[in-house]
């Protein structure tokens, strides 16, 4: 079972060339995104469609979105993958996000009122100089430094959803843990889809959710192109 000397030499040469070539390749930076399916446990959120609870819908939509984002080469961190008995508090969710330091954060909500998708950013006042070195970041207003990026991210998400022919409303509100996040963050609230001359599409409709998920995945890829992760950021 001995091989002739020429093939062995060829294989060794190929292996050597491969080993020399691999370190020269730069690994493709992977965008990390944090998904926070809101509510959970005894905190059920809104009652949708009679029997469907907001906590269940946000969890199901997060799973759908995770699959779409992972397929697009985006790593996903989630604050919950199941319905816990004792859910994380908003402050704990913010802690998870701030420690993971993902470039964008998405908080997922659903509501039986309104129409289309509501993209909500914090209503804090933007920090005067976000680049200024801080000795400490106030917890309650942590989002203020990232607010310009959050508004830009919400706009980019809105454009992607409009391209998918979904009605979008950009709005601002004081909600937790949005105000406590240091990453560019947007809360995505899914409302029933009411188009003229047709019955409203409920938020539980899987085709509707899929359209939203695909538009969000496209927007994240676009965001990654326009806002490349800084050196040393989470990959």
């Amino acid at each position, binding site marked *: 079972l001995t091989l002739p000397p020429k093939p062995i030499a060829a294989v060794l040469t190929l292996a050597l060339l491969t080993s020399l070539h691999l370190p020269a390749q730069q690994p493709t930076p992977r965008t990390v995104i944090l998904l926070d399916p809101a509510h959970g446990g005894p905190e059920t959120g809104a009652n949708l469609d009679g029997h469907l609870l907001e906590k269940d819908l946000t969890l199901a939509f997060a799973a759908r979105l995770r699959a779409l984002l992972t397929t697009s080469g985006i790593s996903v961190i989630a604050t919950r993958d199941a319905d816990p008995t004792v859910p994380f508090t908003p402050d704990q969710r913010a802690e998870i996000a701030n420690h993971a330091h993902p470039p964008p954060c998405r908080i997922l909500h659903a509501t039986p009122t309104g129409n289309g998708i*509501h993209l909500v950013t914090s209503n804090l006042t933007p920090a005067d100089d976000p680049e200024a070195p801080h000795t400490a970041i106030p917890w309650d207003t942590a989002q203020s430094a990232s607010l310009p990026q959050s508004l830009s991210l919400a706009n980019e998400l809105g454009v992607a959803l409009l391209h998918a022919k979904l009605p979008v409303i950009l709005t601002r509100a004081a909600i937790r843990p949005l105000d406590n996040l240091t990453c560019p963050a947007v809360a995505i609230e899914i409302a029933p889809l009411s188009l003229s001359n047709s019955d409203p599409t409920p938020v539980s409709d899987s085709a509707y959710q899929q359209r939203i998920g695909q538009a969000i995945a496209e927007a994240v890829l676009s965001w990654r192109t326009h806002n490349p992760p800084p050196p040393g950021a989470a990959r």
Partner: protein
Amino acid sequence: MIPRYQRILFWSLLGGILLMAAFLLHGCEQAHKRLTALDDATPIAAPTSASTEDVTLYLANDADASITPTPEQIALPQEPTLRARTLLEHLLSNYALPSSSHPLQSGPAVDDVFLLEPPKSIPSTKGSRASRREPGDSAQHTGKMAVINLRGSFIDHHPSGIQVEALTLQSIIGTLHAAFPQLDEVRFLVDGQPHDTLAGHADLLHTYPAIDTTTHPSPPEVTDAIQP
């Protein structure tokens, strides 16, 4: 062979039955309309000898997430805290109308409104969310603070959602700001206690600036950077 008088009697009875059926159906429709009208929870204005005055209600619309100032004429008491409470009750009762663009359940919503003078100096509030301030706020506030004590029943029946809750708060703040320009900040309590959210989303521990909350959200803008 059926006698003629029996045929006449038969057709007369049949005609009578049809007439009675039509009368009953008409009566049912009228009763249904009367019962439907009872669902209209429009508050009946109490008779008052006070003269009405112009106020501006900041009305919310769920469809486009807008807040629109709308002038109205109502009678209000002169005492400031009672005046604020009556104004807010009137505002929120508008949302109980069947034609409301921001439907809320009818019933009393505001227990009290307190108008507080600003403290001489603001003590350290480290670790407290209740007195949270935004960057750029000065340590000294010259205006008053309004503390709105909402009823638990109002919170329990409020629709849940970020936008719908934020619109309710903006509507309250805008209306109060228009009627009391000297107000600087607004805080909320529920049954006399601090409460985390309105219905699971909007932060009620936040101290809101008393500002004009007129809002008409604009659609997303396609900039050069995000051209497809």
